């Protein structure tokens, strides 16, 4: 090993682009991965980090550009190809089989068999136990994955990737659901891998984490690489500047209007997990007209599940909700929407849009009865509402008859919001409303939220982005492990306090996080 600065480049991307229907995710990216080092990749939600990593891991094929592995051009037709070349990946969305044991998951597609081709379960479990031992997670190899906590599942995913003996290991937000103690263990494992010459590509949102363990840093913004440096030469200011460009995030200023009467109240909402325990644990909160209440928490904290309960998507949830002081006794989504609730779900593709229908049909899907006389949809009324919504939300679409899947992520999100608004809700539930959309669209979404609150809507919005929750909320609730662990007035909330509350019930007390990104 020579000087630290000149660690060997093992993998190189040249002018790689990736286009999806609806978005250009990566534009002509050049990216280098060095041996025996932690190569950090940062960028905002939707900047293209995950796509870039999927290209390296063979999950996605680039639309254009070359991949050089040790100087030789390669093209992976599947993730199996990449694995054979020594590239492993820990996925952000967990790619585990819930119905199989931990050991079976770790050895999926490369099962250990005996002479007769029968899977050797004992051997698999013994080998799996070794990897799990290193992660000190208290996971037994014969446990079913669906019975594990989401943080533990993430550790299984990590164990699986480590067990590949990869030369390049990609970790996409590996700590998003881990407790502080688990993060420490993971860092030890990473240091160990690094010492053995493994090239690690590490993606995270948490700047303090990156600065601690990174050796090289690459910043992505809107699919383009905006900076590549050695970590020791940079500071947080530099990273933030590269990430968001010269202008800071546009959160749309609060206009100082005062919230009105209570418009919504939830009391003792509980949702049992299929595996026992509670996904939502006795949550009560109240919301006033014209108020934005942010709900902060880590992945798996129960925010989405709480929203689902409020919308009546789980028949077996308990608790009561009130709108304008009157209890909502309707248990199904359809009638709750009529009472004035509307949800903007976290997963646009799976829950927000009917992707094969047009922009117009998607916009009016939830409010068709408004445009119908008896059973006839009045086309003129519908078109007018669509045109107005397209203008109000600044949806960039040439013709509303276009399929919604042809729009960019940000515009798709606006369609989902427009659909909810056309039902004329009193209370709007927004689950990660800024996930995976570009900066401009984000600013539009935030402005819309401000405007709606000024018009007297109550808005509950869930996010795992600290900046967002601090900048947009009138009050901030924090959830952890299904419980409400904190409720702060905007004025008294600090990042440290929010982070501390979001880690309650996740193992030992967290270390105080520096307010790095300010």
């Amino acid at each position, binding site marked *: 090993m020579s000087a630290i600065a000149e660690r060997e480049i093992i993998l190189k991307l040249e002018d790689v*682009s990736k*286009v999806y*229907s*609806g978005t*250009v995710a990566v*534009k002509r990216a050049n990216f280098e991965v060095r041996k025996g080092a932690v190569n950090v990749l940062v960028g905002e939600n939707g900047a293209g980090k995950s796509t870039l990593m999927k290209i390296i891991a063979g999950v996605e094929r680039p*639309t*254009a550009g070359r991949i050089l592995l040790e100087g030789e051009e390669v093209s992976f037709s599947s993730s199996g190809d990449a694995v054979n070349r020594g590239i492993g990946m820990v996925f952000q969305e967990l790619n585990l089989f819930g119905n199989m044991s931990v050991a079976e998951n770790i050895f999926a597609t490369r099962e250990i068999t005996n002479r007769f081709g029968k899977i050797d379960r004992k051997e698999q479990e013994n080998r799996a136990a070794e990897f799990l031992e290193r992660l000190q997670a208290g996971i037994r190899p014969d446990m079913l994955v669906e019975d594990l906590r989401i943080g533990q599942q993430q550790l299984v995913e990590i164990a699986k990737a480590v067990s590949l003996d990869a030369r390049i290991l990609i970790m996409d937000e590996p700590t998003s659901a881990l407790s502080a103690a688990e993060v420490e263990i993971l860092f030890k494992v990473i240091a160990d891998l690094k010492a053995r010459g493994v090239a690690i590509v590490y993606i995270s949102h948490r700047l303090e984490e990156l600065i601690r363990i990174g050796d090289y840093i690459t910043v992505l913004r809107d699919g383009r690489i905006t900076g590549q440096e050695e970590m020791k030469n940079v500071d947080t200011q530099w990273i933030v500047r590269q990430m968001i460009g010269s202008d800071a995030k546009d959160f749309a200023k609060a206009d100082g209007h005062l919230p009105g009467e209570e418009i919504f109240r939830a009391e003792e909402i509980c949702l049992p997990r299929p595996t026992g325990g509670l996904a939502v644990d006795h949550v009560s909160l109240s919301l006033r007209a014209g108020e934005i209440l942010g709900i902060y928490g880590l992945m798996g904290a129960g925010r989405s599940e709480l929203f689902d309960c409020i*919308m009546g*998507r789980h028949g077996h949830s308990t608790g009561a909700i009130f709108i304008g002081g009157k209890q909502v006794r309707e248990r*199904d*989504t*359809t009638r709750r*929407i*009529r009472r004035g609730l509307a*949800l903007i*779900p976290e997963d646009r593709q*799976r*829950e*927000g*849009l*009917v*992707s*094969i*229908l047009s922009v117009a*049909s998607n916009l*009016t*899907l*939830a409010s*068709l*009865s408004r445009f*119908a006389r008896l*059973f*006839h*949809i009045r*086309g003129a009324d519908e078109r007018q509402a669509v045109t107005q919504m397209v203008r109000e939300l600044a949806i960039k679409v040439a013709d509303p008859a276009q399929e919604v899947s*042809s729009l960019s992520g940000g515009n798709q999100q606006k369609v989902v919001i427009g*659909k909810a608004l056309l*039902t004329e809700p009193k209370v709007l539930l927004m689950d990660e409303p800024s996930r995976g959309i570009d900066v401009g669209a984000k600013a539009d979404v935030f402005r819309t939220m401000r405007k709606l609150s000024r018009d007297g809507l109550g808005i509950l919005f869930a996010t795992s982005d600290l900046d967002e929750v601090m900048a947009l909320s009138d009050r901030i609730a924090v959830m952890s492990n299904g419980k409400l662990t904190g409720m702060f007035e905007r004025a008294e909330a600090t990042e440290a306090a929010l982070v501390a509350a979001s880690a309650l019930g996740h193992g030992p007390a967290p270390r105080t996080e520096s307010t790095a990104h300010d």
Partner: protein
Amino acid sequence: MTDIPAKAAAPSASSGSVLLTLMKLRTFIALIAVLIFFSIAAPNFLSTANLILMSKHVALNAFLAMGMTFVIITGGIDLSVGSIVGLCGMVAGYLVLNGIDLQIGYTIYFNVFEIALITLAVGILIGAINGLLITRLNVAPFIATLGVLYVARGLALLSSDGRTFPNLVGKPELGTTGFGFLGAGRLLGLPVAIWILIVVALGAAYLAKYTPLGRHIFAVGGNERASRISGVRVNMVKMFVYMFSGFCAAIVGLIISSELMASHPATGESFELNAIAAAVLGGTSMSGGRGTIGGTIVGAFVIGILSDGLVMMGVSSFWQMVIKGLVIIVAVVVDQAQRRLQQRVTLMQMAKAG
């Protein structure tokens, strides 16, 4: 038929959109192709008598295919329609011949109009059973309707011990005459069955395009979860499509037994397959969310004309099956090719723009 994929041979930048248009119109082109082909190859093919006869054959399949189209658009399948045809025919035949015996020395006889209504209600009821199995008991549509296929067929056979109800002319003193009108009657020169087809098809096309229910049918097939969150009553939509399919099958049962003036319990066997074929040929996507009533009707015509034309040409029925199968496969292959081409064109445009 086979010349359509041949045209796909040389895709270049400018021919992309022309090719796309051709592919979108493929069912229509296929229809014109079979019409031209048979009018040359089969003598008397274009005679009025033959055209009316053919359209009656087509109508039967078209009814079933329309019901099937809505079911498939929601992402389901209805295998029970053929059996419903048989059972409904038996119900109608039984009522004409025997009425309902009240067990107290009286027997109620219904007039033909009432018999038709009761038969339709039976069809809708069986559709509702399909729907309940699928929505309430979470049985997969394939399995639920497969079960009902056997049950309905069995009931049809039981109703007469496997025998035919013959000679359904009815008795004037009981007011049960006139059953033949549906199958053999004519209005303004066209068979009554064709008029009914026109009315039902227009109704279904209107429903698909201009009503909230129609929009919801497409939404459920496109993304059931998103529909649910948007407040669409998914279960009600599914109930409706299976009931409508049962309704269409009951019409077919009525028309066939009226035409023959007899009900045979084995009527309608494998009709469900023809109906699925017509829907798919007409551009209905088996994965849900896509399809049109117009396309399905054209699809039914292609299949009907193809089989009648081949019969007139004296092609063996074994070859007819082979040809029908090939046509369906080609249709789906072209459908997939069209999607891919469309996607590629869009992506290229976006890559250029980005």
